[in-house]
């Protein structure tokens, strides 16, 4: 165990996987010499100059060459510098990475993990604060993973790199350096994809969150008088419906939290699943705490856009009062 920040947990995990498996290739814009704009890949090139690369500034090429690397037996782990720039590679993700297995009846696959910083709250430029997990999650064949802590980042990234299918690994920029925690070491520390974590067990209300907003949900739960059951989704797709529904049946009250826009967001999917499977148990309508249906504003107005722990707390109070 060592005390690490989230960005350090990412780096240590990449270093360990590069050491463990010579099929792992880490590349992207400024990931080599510079170590990445967030320093997530700092120093990796020193140990593995042949498998840690800087590449031309072309995101479609980053994803598209990854499809080829994976088809030829490598384990590409590219970085796309900011999640909004993955839109330039979105067609490669949807048309090829996600479909190679189904297109060929599993005779060709795409074991690739695309790491990309996402989310707001860091006073960044325009298009440096996106949260498009619902869009990626809507693509069959992709897995979408969002860690909420250094330890979760290490365990989930290790699972992603080893996964036989393509993973979009969304790293919350706001949590990169915000806190340190003890991160288990060693090749066996793996958190399975597709499984949500019941971070805190409770009886009164279920709060479902992931990524950086999970921390706001945690603060709201701590500030609440209610006995909150706190679920960290960890994997946005495929969604762990079972864990969410089991909790909803127990508490009868559900709040879903994300910073992505409200409409067509993960909250809608969670609410629908709870409605389908746990409606007789519900004491209140499912509440969604989310970003507004507006393009993410420049940072002078981002505090107005971003939900926070007070918003989650208010939603908890509303479902309890219903």
């Amino acid at each position, binding site marked *: 165990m060592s005390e690490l920040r989230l960005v350090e947990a990412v780096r240590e995990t990449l270093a360990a996987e590069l050491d463990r498996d010579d099929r792992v290739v880490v590349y992207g814009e400024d990931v080599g010499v510079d170590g990445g704009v967030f320093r997530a890949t700092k120093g990796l090139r020193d140990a593995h100059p042949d498998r840690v690369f800087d590449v*031309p500034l072309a995101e479609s*090429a980053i994803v598209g060459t990854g499809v080829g690397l994976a088809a030829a037996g490598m384990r590409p782990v590219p970085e796309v510098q900011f999640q909004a720039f993955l839109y330039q590679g979105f*067609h490669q993700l949807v048309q090829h990475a996600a479909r190679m297995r189904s297109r*060929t009846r599993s005779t*060709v*696959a795409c074991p690739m993990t695309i790491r990309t910083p996402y989310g707001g709250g860091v006073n960044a430029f325009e298009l440096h604060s996106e949260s498009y997990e619902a869009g990626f999650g809507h693509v069959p064949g992709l897995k979408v993973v969002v860690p909420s802590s250094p330890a979760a980042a290490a365990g989930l990234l290790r699972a992603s790199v080893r996964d036989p299918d393509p993973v979009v690994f969304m790293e919350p920029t706001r949590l990169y350096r915000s806190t340190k925690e003890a991160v288990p070491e060693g090749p066996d520390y793996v958190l399975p994809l597709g499984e949500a974590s019941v971070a805190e067990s409770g009886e009164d209300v279920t709060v479902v969150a992931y990524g950086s907003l999970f921390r706001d949900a945690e603060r709201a739960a701590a500030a609440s008088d209610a006995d909150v059951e706190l679920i960290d989704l960890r994997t946005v797709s495929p969604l762990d*419906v079972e864990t969410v529904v089991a909790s909803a049946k127990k508490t009868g009250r559900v709040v879903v939290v994300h910073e992505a826009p409200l409409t067509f967001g993960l909250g809608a999917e969670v609410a629908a699943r709870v409605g389908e499977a746990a409606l007789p148990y519900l004491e209140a309508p499912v509440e969604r705490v989310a970003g507004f249906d507006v393009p993410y504003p420049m940072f002078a107005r981002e505090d107005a856009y971003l939900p926070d722990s007070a918003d989650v707390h208010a939603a908890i109070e509303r479902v309890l009062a219903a």
Partner: protein
Amino acid sequence: MPRERVASFDVEFVSVLGPDGSVDEALVPDASDDELREWYRTMRLSRRLDERAIALQRRGEIGSYAPATGQEAIQVGASAATRADDWFVPSFREQTAALALGGDPTAQFLYAMGREEGAEVPPDANALPPAVPVGSQTLHAVGVAWAERLRDRDRATVAYFGDGASSEGDVAEALNVAGVFDVGVVFVCQNNQYAISTPRRLQSRAQTLAQKAIGAGIDCVQVDGNDVLGSHVVVREALDRAREGHPTLVEALTYRRAMHTTSDDPSVYRSPEEEAEWARRDPISRFETYLRERGILDDETVQAIEADVEETIAAAVERAKAAPPPDPTDVFEHVYATVPPVLRAQAEAFREGRR
């Protein structure tokens, strides 16, 4: 301050067997009579595959089909230059190349019947499946070649695309990245003059498509793509460079003699005169004349090849028709390596007749 030329470039055109039957003997590739007959047979096989597929589509027995008719020379010439472990990265009109590389024509019919079985990649084949979004596969080829470089192997990667795809950003990125990393890709641009109805001149003001490589700093050459000998020569040279780790863009000038797909009517956008001119330059008849003049083919061998081709295609059609009907529940099985619970629930509901 001086004005001076800091860089200059040129683009070479190669033709060995001309449309008029003239031959540049110095450039004739070193191939045995048996090999030349095999090239001819594959071209005829592909032409017959197209004819049967179009007929089956007209009878409603298969779905849309994209014929390669007219483009057999570049695909056979290029494929014959490859090594068995080289990579094949096709677009969706490379059935000739697939056949030349030993592919089963049954797969072509299965694919045209709307079945993924036709896109399965056999375990011993270094190949990717057909890529429908034009140009997108060129980036995969760069990734494949990069993987081979990382493993210190000298396998080359042959990536096909067309004149329409040359306008796509992915092709520009692929040429550029291939140049930066200096990886062994042979980009074969089959300039068949049309992207559905859009003529070559509307894709680019560039004098040649080959010269798009110049901006990426990589080698390029233009060849008569209806000349199987010339196509073979330039691709073999490009493959030699690829084994050394260097990319090349080959622009093969050819003509899509049939429709874009069976859903298309070329008479809307091109003239019978133009089509007749390209019929005169047909790659198969040109090559047959050459082979007959050299005594490599005669009436008897041509008839034997025709009979063999007919039988091969007929058998492939029968095998495709006789394939077990598609199991619709398969769709759930090939999304992820392990079916996740949310998808398993949908599969179970489907099996029980619910949605």
